[in-house]
């Protein structure tokens, strides 16, 4: 199973875009890293998650 933000999840075959939509993330407010590397925004729709992936989705909130 892929690990997303530290939790194992059944997401194999799913794209980053569809995962973000399903979980209600705003793509303009997130940074996504796979295996410790940043994923360019243009790659969200063509990047399919597989069982070995470790994914970090950082959703930023306002204030500073």
């Amino acid at each position: 199973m892929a690990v997303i933000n530290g939790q194992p999840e059944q997401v194999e075959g799913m794209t980053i875009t569809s995962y973000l939509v399903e979980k209600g993330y705003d793509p303009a407010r997130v940074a996504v890293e796979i295996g410790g590397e940043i994923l360019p925004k243009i790659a969200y729709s063509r990047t399919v998650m597989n069982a070995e992936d470790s994914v970090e989705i950082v959703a930023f909130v306002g204030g500073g």
Partner: protein
Amino acid sequence: MISHDEWRAALDERFGRDLRTRMEAARVAVCGLGGLGSNISIALARSGIGTLHLIDFDRVDISNLNRQQYEIAQLGMEKTVALRETLTRIAPFCIVETETMRIREQDIPTLFEHDGIVCEAFDKPEAKAMLVQGVREHYPQTPIVSGSGMAGIGSANSIRTRRVSKNFYLCGDATSDVASGAGLAAPRVLACAAHEALTVMRLIAGEAEA
């Protein structure tokens, strides 16, 4: 006025010569000079950082005074100019380079060429995401320290530093959003700014873990 050698000797006494020398050789970018950025800059300047690269487009407004390091007399001034003035009074040997601009995605590939570490200290979540994305893409070897989640007056114990990946550190509680109406209070914003500034110092000291 004190001499640069007296300033150095005072810092040596606090941190030791090795860390003081590393701090003096470092150049750090601070993006956004609000509650996070103004406090990060002052903490780093007091700690003997060699060069600060300060970037903000905004002017000092009355609504900033509850948490940002500006004074009544500085209302209406560009934040870059006001903060430089304050830093010169606190830490005259810190080299302060300023750019009064709103950072756009296309500016990122050249803006941080000379910076060893970048601090994200913006207010808007879209701007935070844009900067972190750009720095991670264009400068994978440069650590970025970001702040997210410091609104309200919840316990400061929930504010922490997390190492998301090798060169990406995230400070804050990750959830308290100013959009919830909770407001921004100096003590909690300062706690987050302190996490960011300390992470910068730890990176300079070679203590890479969060």
